[in-house]
């Protein structure tokens, strides 16, 4: 195997092992926050040693062993915790410890416990995202900082504060029960969705590393699905991410400019992701209670199955948005339903639906409302209104590629193209 291939291999393995090792260390040696630090150090040690020295026979045991040693080192300098140090160092002196799998059978559950822990409602979204990527995703602080375009020290601080908050909340290292479990599952799915969106929309300017975030979100959704194979919404979430991500190669041009759905080269869409997404969402829809992620995935599937933009089954899209709108009180859903309505009943019908949104403070004045109005005015042949709306949207968006796209649309209309 080449050096490069070896390194890549080690990286994948490390990220798969990260939550299992952390689960084992946290379970055996107490405090989640300390365990998380120790595992992060073990991961960094492995990522520098494994690519050149080779992957050890029992990589899980190796990481566990190194993490426990770090934990013991930390505690040695901390008098108040001497007792727990003894437990850790006793294991350390057992030379064969790293050859055994330290937590047989408990691995899979721990990933779920960790996800639920990192997506704790006491945390703000940026904190939950960062902690999830590190503790469950096995990314280093430096990698996460790069993906979010912030200095490493800032990200380290964000993670450490998140752990502080978890510690203060006194939540035990266990799965929540009953209703709380369902509520927390929603939070977990939302965090995964936000990680994906961060990679997908590049809200803070251009950046290549951000597509990694979309892939990481898909990996986390797969992990969640492996834990909860019977949950329709988890399947719906994974399907939605796969179907959306399948278009990533087609949605930007050579200079990073945005290409809208109806102008994309569908040959560039990633077929395997589409097939997997469609299979997942079909299975989920036919077998249980329908939820918002499944519906969004079903809408994405309609687009994915259409051979061209012109052949899109807009009636079905409109019907699905209707169901989604009744289920979730979200103005962005209404915005999308207006687009679908305009494709079925004409642009004026779409514009009429948008009027209700001007009274909704959550979206009134948002650039997306202007952008959708601009497109509908353009299709209705109101050139002056379309230009004004495109410019208004361009003034308000915080995304550079989106701004460029909107200004170019306005310029083309003004130029009479």
């Amino acid at each position: 195997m080449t050096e490069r291939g070896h390194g890549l291999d080690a990286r994948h393995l490390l990220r798969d092992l990260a939550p299992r090792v952390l689960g084992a260390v946290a379970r055996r040696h107490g405090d989640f926050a300390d365990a998380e630090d120790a595992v992060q150090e073990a991961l960094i040690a492995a990522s520098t040693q494994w690519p050149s020295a080779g992957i050890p026979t029992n990589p899980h045991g190796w990481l566990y062993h190194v993490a426990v040693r770090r934990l013991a080192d930390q505690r040695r300098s901390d008098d108040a915790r001497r007792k727990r140090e003894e437990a850790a160092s006793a294991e350390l002196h057992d030379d064969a410890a790293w050859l055994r799998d330290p937590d047989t059978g408990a691995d899979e559950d721990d990933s779920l416990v960790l996800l639920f822990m990192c997506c704790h409602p006491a945390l703000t979204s940026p904190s939950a995202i960062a902690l999830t990527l590190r503790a469950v995703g096995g990314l280093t602080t430096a990698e996460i900082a790069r993906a979010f375009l912030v200095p490493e020290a800032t990200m380290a601080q964000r993670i450490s504060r998140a752990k502080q908050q978890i510690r203060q909340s006194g939540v035990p290292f266990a799965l929540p029960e009953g209703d709380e479990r369902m509520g927390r599952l929603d939070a977990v799915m939302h965090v995964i969705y936000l990680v994906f969106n961060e990679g997908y929309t590049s809200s803070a300017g251009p950046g290549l590393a951000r597509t990694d975030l979309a892939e990481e979100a898909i990996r986390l959704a797969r992990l969640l699905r492996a834990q909860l194979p019977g949950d329709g919404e988890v399947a719906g979430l994974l399907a939605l991410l796969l179907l959306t991500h399948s278009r990533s190669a087609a949605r930007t041009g050579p200079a990073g400019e945005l290409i809208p759905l109806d102008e994309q080269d569908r040959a560039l869409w990633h077929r395997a992701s589409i097939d997997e997404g469609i299979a997942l969402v079909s299975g989920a829809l036919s077998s249980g209670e329908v939820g918002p992620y499944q519906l969004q995935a079903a809408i994405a599937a309609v687009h994915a199955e259409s051979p061209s933009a012109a052949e899109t089954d807009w009636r079905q899209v409109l019907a699905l948005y209707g169901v989604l709108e009744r289920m979730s009180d979200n103005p962005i859903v209404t915005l999308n339903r207006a687009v679908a309505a305009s494709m079925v009943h004409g642009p004026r019908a779409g514009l009429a639906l948008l009027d209700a949104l001007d009274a909704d403070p959550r979206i009134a004045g948002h650039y997306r409302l202007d952008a959708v109005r601009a497109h509908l005015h353009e299709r209705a042949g109101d050139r002056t209104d379309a230009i004004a709306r495109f410019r208004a949207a361009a003034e308000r968006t915080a995304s550079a590629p989106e701004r460029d796209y909107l200004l170019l649309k306005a310029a083309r209309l003004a130029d009479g193209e």
Partner: protein
Amino acid sequence: MRYMMMMNTPGGKGGDYRINDWRPEDFKAHIAFMHRFNAALKEAGEFVDAQGLTPPGEAKLVRAGADGRPVTDGPFAESKEFLAGFWILEVENEARALELAAAVSAAPGPRGAPLNMGIELRRIMSAPPVEG
């Protein structure tokens, strides 16, 4: 040495760069120039950071009032010039920083003519040694 290079563009009703009067090909050429400029900076190892700012329509000037709470002015949509974006550069010497600033000042505008925008160049002070 590090410099902050700030791109000031004409304000006025047109929003950023008065772009409303531009033809699509002029606009595309301008964006392509900026992409090339940044790629070349990265290639040369002189790129530290670059950020574009949203237009000044929503910008606010904030001061603390007597009670410590924010007192704001703005927006400033009609200001004569405004900061459209900035770069942080790591360059060998001042001459190179001046050269880069001149290059970006001459970014193409309508019909490919150089814009000759005002570019403000400020040397970044070095930080004290970090303890560690």
